[in-house]
């Protein structure tokens, strides 16, 4: 394999890893703060993608700009889901809570996915813009514009999220709630509002990921489960307490997949991620980037 094609593989691995990272961060946020596993996260991602597709088709809006529509829509959906469904589970404790959230979100997956099939048909949709196909070429390695912009958006989102969580008052309240929700209540923090906002924030991150997926790959109602699984893999790699660590873990997964795809063949590329996932779960459950 030449240096160039290896570099190309790496670069594409980073590109897709950026999307993995954003997708996983939404799930990690909900898991870290609400201590619930939202299996329907991939469905939210899918809905975000469709919001973008619809905005593109109806208004001719550039898909990256239609984040301005996708994000608020998914934010509202997130608020709604928390208010109607997840609110009842968040009061439970420990393992029961995680298990029940898994089950409920599984039910939601069925509902959302099949509603999507009914509304949008099962066909795959794509988005074509005038810069699709164009790109930079550095040292013989291709950097398509669409993917560059996606990675940039992913990076900016991560930085904004980091700033929000670590440097703003409400962000710190979220982090505090994640560490110890009773202590947070005792500090006067309305944890129910924190839970609701955090869930909506997670949905917004899913919307961003969904938009990027739509631009790069196209969208169909069945992609939800695939992306949920990817996000789960990344979360386990990053360590389940880590929210921002999901981003580098996503890049890592992307690169590992791309490189093993190049060497073992693309048929096993999907399997590699899953195998690593199962191994990490069993051998090092606190994840690769664990803090304590």
């Amino acid at each position, binding site marked *: 394999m030449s240096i160039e094609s290896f570099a190309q593989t790496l670069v594409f691995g980073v590109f897709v890893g950026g999307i993995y990272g954003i997708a996983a961060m939404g799930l990690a946020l909900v898991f870290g703060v609400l201590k619930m596993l939202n299996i329907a996260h991939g469905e939210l991602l899918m809905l975000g993608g469709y919001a973008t597709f619809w905005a593109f088709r109806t208004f001719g809006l550039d898909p990256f700009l239609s984040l301005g529509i996708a994000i608020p829509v998914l934010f509202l959906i997130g608020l709604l889901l928390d208010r109607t469904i997840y609110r009842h*589970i968040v009061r439970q404790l420990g393992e029961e809570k995680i298990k029940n959230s898994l089950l409920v979100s599984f039910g939601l997956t069925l*509902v959302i996915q*099949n509603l999507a099939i009914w509304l949008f048909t099962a066909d795959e949709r794509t988005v074509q813009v005038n810069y699709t196909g164009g790109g930079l070429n550095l040292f013989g390695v291709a950097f398509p514009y669409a993917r560059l912009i996606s990675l940039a958006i992913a990076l900016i989102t991560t930085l904004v999220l980091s700033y929000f969580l670590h440097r703003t008052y409400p962000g710190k309240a979220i982090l505090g709630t994640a560490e110890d929700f009773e202590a947070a209540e005792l500090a006067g923090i309305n944890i129910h509002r924190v839970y609701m906002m955090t869930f909506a924030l997670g949905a917004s991150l899913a919307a961003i990921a969904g938009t990027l997926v739509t631009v790069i790959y196209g969208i169909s109602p069945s992609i939800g489960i695939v992306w949920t699984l990817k996000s789960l893999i990344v979360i386990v790699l990053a360590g389940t307490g880590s929210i921002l660590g999901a981003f580098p873990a996503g890049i890592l997964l992307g690169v590992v997949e791309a490189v093993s795809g190049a060497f073992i063949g693309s048929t*096993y590329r999907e399997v590699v991620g899953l195998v690593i996932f199962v191994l990490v779960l*069993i051998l090092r459950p606190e994840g690769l980037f664990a803090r304590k």
Partner: protein
Amino acid sequence: MAQRPFKQVMTGQQTFIDSLRRWLIPFGVVLLILFAVIYPQQIDKQNIWNLFFLICLHTTLSQSWNILAGFAGQTSLGHAAFFGIGAFVTRTLWLDETPFSLAFIAGGLAAAAFAMLIGAPTFRLRGAYFAIGTLGVAEVLRITVSQNVPFISSMPGPLMASYELAPRYYLALGLAIATTGAAYLLLRSPWSLGILAVREDEGAAQAMGVHVLRHKLLALALSSFFAGLAGGVFAFQQISYYPSAPFSALWTFDALLIAFVGGLGTLAGPVIGAIFFILVRQQLAVTLVEIHQVVFGIFFIVIVLVFPGGLVEAWRHLRRVRWPKRTT
């Protein structure tokens, strides 16, 4: 005239009602089985054979899942792996001139063998991690099969010629009865207390001297064996299909849905759930294709939130309210 003490009189009457109640359930079961045996034969229409077949197949799948998740409390999302392995092994052997009965058993055993192999390591995971870990394992199998054996498996000419639905249905029915019977015997066995203890509180069970891993593995062995046999039935019945299809997580999700809706941890749950699920699906599939899934999804969410015990718990709750049981 000596007066019998009041208490004795009451007890006498109640014993009679009790024994009536006690015979009601086995009698009902026998009736159900007789119905299942006779009715399709009498009607002899293909869609009825298919309907009943599906009910039996899903009963087996969800009952076998129930053994692991309902009785032992291990919520696995990798059930389709056993279904898939059973189907794969059975189909491969059967299409390769092996008599079906051998291929069938081999499928079940292969699934159980695989389960025992991954059992010990995966049981180190708890709760949600166990769930997603088993899902990961099942997906690995599915993708591996789908990449390595991508071509449709079709029934060859001579087997097609002798194809009959009836024996396939009765095999499925027999398997459903056997699986439920095995679950029943498990609950009556000396292992049952240990398994249920593991479900309630692993730590406490261990402290009481229950060998937790061994009990989990027992439940897993039964669960995977019957799921594998179900896969064999699937391989027997399907004329052509993609070998990776039975590995799809959708089979796990159906089993899960049925067990929950019917009543997780009960014997009747998977049976009632399967009947309900297939009948409703048939009805709804006539109108809007995907709506039945939406309906079940909503049903499922409501059950997890409100009635974790499913239809069986709802029924018991109703009974307790309308016919209060006398307490001794």
